[in-house]
């Protein structure tokens, strides 16, 4: 009986020693693991490669109008990406907690900025999101809750941005849900983009990071505008039907153009069966072949 009471007492002490809701420490420098989808996360994707993006017609049309020179317009060089750039960009993360000065509880989690992405503040104090008519900006407004050991952050009030660095766009009505899952020294971040304007289904990407003792630099502003080859006043774009790169993945890798153009069906494994007769394996891969199989 005495032993039983002692066990109960010990269990009570152990429980009280932890926060009321399960949560874990996410602070630290997290080095991006970029060999997964290395082209997408490294140098960037090819133009008009939108396979796996659940576009609707409006999303596809907007992407087809995009010229990579658009973001070299002087007024856009320092234009911030949305928080989706965590998924679409190659960078590592620096995370820290901001405590409430009175209670010591975590008031917010922060993810440091990059030159082209504002810091992400994940409010943990239960404050509501702004009203539907509140101004939007690239940073958006983010709140978080713990679900066991998983931090779930919801971002609203963003402006239009890119979901892939080749012109696939998200609208200002999009919502980003970001899940942070820590497994020891490994961090998995799963991002869900829901956009009623350009997507028919949620677009989901996961990223992995290793905890690093090498501090990840927080490369926020200032971004420096300079001449990147687009003279002031010119707005690079492609008119409907004039994008010259819609067959690039077909010529380079034998991937059918219908797959390049995206759509929800291209996200699912069974789509490969549907297009298998249209796929032609190139005789030789010459560029970005992966695993040193040729090219670079």
């Amino acid at each position, binding site marked *: 009986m005495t032993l039983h009471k002692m066990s109960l007492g010990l269990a009570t002490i152990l429980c009280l020693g932890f926060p009321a809701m399960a949560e874990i420490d996410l602070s630290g420098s997290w080095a991006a693991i970029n060999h997964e989808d290395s082209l997408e996360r490294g140098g960037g994707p090819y133009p008009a490669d939108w396979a796996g993006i659940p576009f609707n017609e409006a999303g596809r049309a907007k992407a087809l109008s995009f010229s*990579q020179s658009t973001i070299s317009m002087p007024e856009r060089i320092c234009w911030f990406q949305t928080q989706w750039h965590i998924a679409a960009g*190659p960078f590592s993360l620096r995370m820290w907690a901001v405590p409430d000065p009175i209670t010591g509880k975590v008031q917010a989690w922060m993810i440091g900025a990059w030159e082209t992405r504002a810091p992400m503040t994940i409010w943990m104090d239960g404050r509501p999101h702004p009203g539907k008519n509140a101004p939007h900006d690239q940073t958006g407004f983010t709140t978080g809750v713990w679900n066991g050991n998983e931090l779930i952050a919801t971002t609203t009030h963003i402006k239009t941005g890119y979901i892939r*660095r*080749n012109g696939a766009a998200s609208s200002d009505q999009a919502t980003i849900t970001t899940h942070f899952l820590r497994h020891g020294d490994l961090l998995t971040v799963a991002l869900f983009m829901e956009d009623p304007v350009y997507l028919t289904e949620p677009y989901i990407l996961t990223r992995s990071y290793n905890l690093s003792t090498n501090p990840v630099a927080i*490369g926020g502003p200032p971004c420096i505008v*300079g001449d990147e080859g687009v003279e002031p006043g010119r707005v690079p774009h492609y008119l409907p039907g004039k994008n010259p790169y819609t067959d690039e993945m077909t010529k380079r890798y034998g991937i059918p153009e219908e797959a390049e153009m995206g759509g929800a069906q291209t996200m699912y494994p069974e789509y490969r069966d549907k297009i298998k007769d249209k796929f032609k394996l190139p005789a030789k891969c010459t560029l*970005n072949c992966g695993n040193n199989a040729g090219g670079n």
Partner: protein
Amino acid sequence: MKTKLLVLTFAGVSILGVRAYAHHSFASTYLEDQKVTVEADVVQFLYRNPHSFLQLESKDDKGKSITWAVEWGAGGQLGSQGVQRDTLRIGDHVIVQGQPGRDPEAHRLRMINIKRPSDGWTWKGNFD
């Protein structure tokens, strides 16, 4: 030993190399399987993050000036390779080899190598 070196190299690239990329997709911006050579004078050197840019001026066949924007590595990355903000000066005559931009109106290159004949200074490498 080779495996250890590979792992260390990969770790280094993972941690240090990540600031090289910015808003551009190189594969979307440049024709990565082509090369062009430009002989021109330095107009400006923007030594910065996330990418540096070198502005060059040359003349076409009719004597008309052409300004080239040559994309290069991040300031920190170039610094570790011996390229400082004062390595190139306005008026330096250089020969640049690079990948041409997909937008022909932009006169843009992604740096592969650069040589300054006056003193033989050269740089070549990959900032990807």
